[in-house]
């Protein structure tokens, strides 16, 4: 089925459902198909756009499909569910990415806000409940900065895919091109926690590490 592309012939603009919006619930006296058929006598002039490139294709006939059949080939609700549920799970079950739409900058501050209020119960619940990156209950980002001592360029690593120090260090070794030998001999994994203190990762259990870390540094020992 070839779909119409580009500038379709402009049809007369369809007149809207011709009633005033009233306060409160109002009667639904036009489904899309009925309003599209009343195309005459519209007072919505599309002045000024006639000859330039802003003519918008009014392919009204397309409107008649899908009004009753929600399960057409393209709109299988199951597909969509799978897709959106994967968006939720992607973040280690933490919640939807980027929702509610609060800027990352504000989220960082929100953390401090809550430290001052008696909301530690909520934080603990969120951490224990559905997220593996507990400390970041307030942030939907699972990426943290990683720097190597002596290297000016910082990288970012997605923590949600790691469940242990082994897996994290093997990724870091690959990322910074450090051999197993070099790692054992000269490097240690350090991190900065929420209070701004620098600690050695080897001193803490994985869960503590994951919940309190802000960024990672590979220091030379």
């Amino acid at each position, binding site marked *: 089925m070839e779909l119409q592309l580009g500038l379709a012939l402009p049809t007369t603009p369809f007149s809207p459902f011709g009633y005033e919006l009233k306060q409160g619930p109002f009667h639904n006296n036009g489904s899309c198909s009925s309003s599209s058929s009343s195309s005459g006598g519209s007072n919505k002039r599309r002045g000024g756009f006639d000859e330039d490139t802003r003519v918008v*294709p009014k392919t009204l006939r397309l*409107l008649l499909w899908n009004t009753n059949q929600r399960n057409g080939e393209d709109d299988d609700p199951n597909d969509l569910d799978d897709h959106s549920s994967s968006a939720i799970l992607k973040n280690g079950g933490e919640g939807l990415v980027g929702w*509610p739409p*609060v800027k990352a900058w504000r989220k960082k501050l929100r953390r401090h806000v809550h430290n001052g209020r008696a909301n530690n119960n909520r934080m603990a619940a969120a951490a224990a409940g559905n997220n593996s990156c507990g400390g970041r209950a307030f942030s939907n980002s699972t990426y943290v900065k990683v720097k190597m001592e002596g290297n000016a360029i910082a990288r970012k690593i997605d923590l949600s895919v790691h469940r242990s120090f082994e897996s994290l260090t093997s990724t870091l070794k690959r990322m910074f091109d450090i051999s197993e030998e070099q790692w054992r001999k000269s490097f240690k994994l350090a991190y900065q926690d929420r209070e701004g203190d620098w600690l050695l990762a080897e001193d803490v259990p994985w869960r503590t590490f994951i919940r309190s870390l802000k960024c990672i540094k590979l220091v030379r020992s």
Partner: protein
Amino acid sequence: MHKKMMFSFPDEVLEHVFSFIQSDKDRNSVSMVCKSWYEIERWCRRKVFVGNCYSVSPRMVIRRFPEFRSIELKGKPHFADFNLVPDGWGGYVFPWIAEMAGAFPWLEEIKLKRMVVTDESLELIAKSFKNFKVLVLSSCEGFSTDGLAAIAASCKNLKELDLRDCEVDDLSGHWLSHFPDTVSLVSLNISCLGSDEVSFSALERLVGRCTNLRTLRLNRAVPLDKIANILRRAPHLVEFGTGTYAADLRPDVYSDLAGAFSSCKELKSLSGFWDLVPAYLPAIYPACSKLTSLNLSYATIQSPDLIKLLSQCPNLQRLLVLDYIEDSGLEALASTCKDLQELRVFPSDPFGAEPNVSLTERGLVAVSSGCPKLQSVLYFCRRMSNEALVTIAKNCPNFTRFRLCIIEPRTADYLTLEPLDVGFGAIVQYCKDLQRLSLSGLLTDRVFEYIGTYAKKLEMLSVAFAGDSDLGLHHVLSGCESLRKLEIRDCPFGDKALLANAAKLDTMRSLWMSSCAVSFGACKLLGQKMPRLNVEVIDERGPPDSRPESCPVDKLYIYRTVAGPRFDMPPFVWTMEDDPSLQLS
């Protein structure tokens, strides 16, 4: 020939006339009148605005406008603010700086939004532009205080340094000391800098010698007891942002602070107030009667304290606040601040399942009723009704921006359990000048029908978890004549509406669709048939052609461009190729 001479002015006269035309849109219109106006205009355009840095190449801009002094560039799509655009997507400013550095050294202003700015870029700016005056970086990232030190040290004529909402690698607070003694800043905004040490003495000295300082926004690291000293050195400040506004209550500190605030007779805008302790709030009362803008969105004070404060601010035009203000606080706001034009209410606990404050639709209805000049609203809440929205719409036909975020996706009208189609429909019907709209709550295709019908001036629409079918998208694309930016996430919109309205995309700046139902096949088709669009598929799962063509893509970003496909993409972004043989003429 004779006629032509009668009706045309010498170039210099036209240039003089054009110099009064500042707005970008008007300049563009002027340039389209005729060839000679195009030529004259392009030589005298001093400010260039590029809404999408990939829509045109730096070389093209420089070729067309050989004498601009100021450039504004925007990079990543808006949804990058909410972590929907993966790191590394793009938006690098370096190529622009490099081209401009080579072409002309008299550039004075650079304003960037959502771009990746490296220290290398900052160093190049510092080195290349001898008369550099204004640097505004909004929601940018990729640089450290080293880059800032280079700017401070070399830009002897710097007037404005504004880092708002940036992610800066705070390596050292001593970059401030790099400013020479002769620098005379008018505006300094370092509010986004981290909590690492800021050199207070350097800051005080800097403020002291910048006698023309009108805007100063400090970062959280600056403690309360330093503010008085700083304010005393800058008595002509118009805009001031505090650092942390918390300390143990000490009478000497308090009176010092109150004295400092009262000595600043020109203060119109206050912000900052991290960790605000109510006991110190009255110190700002002397300044309140003149305040037109107040940003308390980091202040965790409760409604009663807010009400007391707001009662001191009758001339307030702009208020940013957390939802601790509650309905009661908003009702007080509505009765005292009759000049209010812009209100933003942010959630204190956005990820909590239960409401932690008593802020509902009632607060917004009260403000809409009490503040006749209200034009711009951003409101986070947990419940809404069609009835409330219709009331709000009727109260405020002058809305230009209406952004409502009901925190739980797909929340219905809490009174009738119906979708909120009618409520938002009323907004677009009554607010004829609406330019920006963000939807939330339970919404069917119907709301898009209203939007397509009524929202003729709408330029930017944000949609999430809404609609039933492609019909919804079709209504918007075919009806919204002024639409420039459309961003959609988690909606059941697929191929049909997009392909049927492909030509519309040429008239818009950009379209973002993530977690929708647009197939890879449709993206390819669109890329092939629309030569003036870049169709980017962003998919971290791996190459889209490793899956069937009917499989929906994860994220789609389409924008019009005259620069062709870009070449700085990371491995998880694919630009669909043009196919000249398939293009329609």
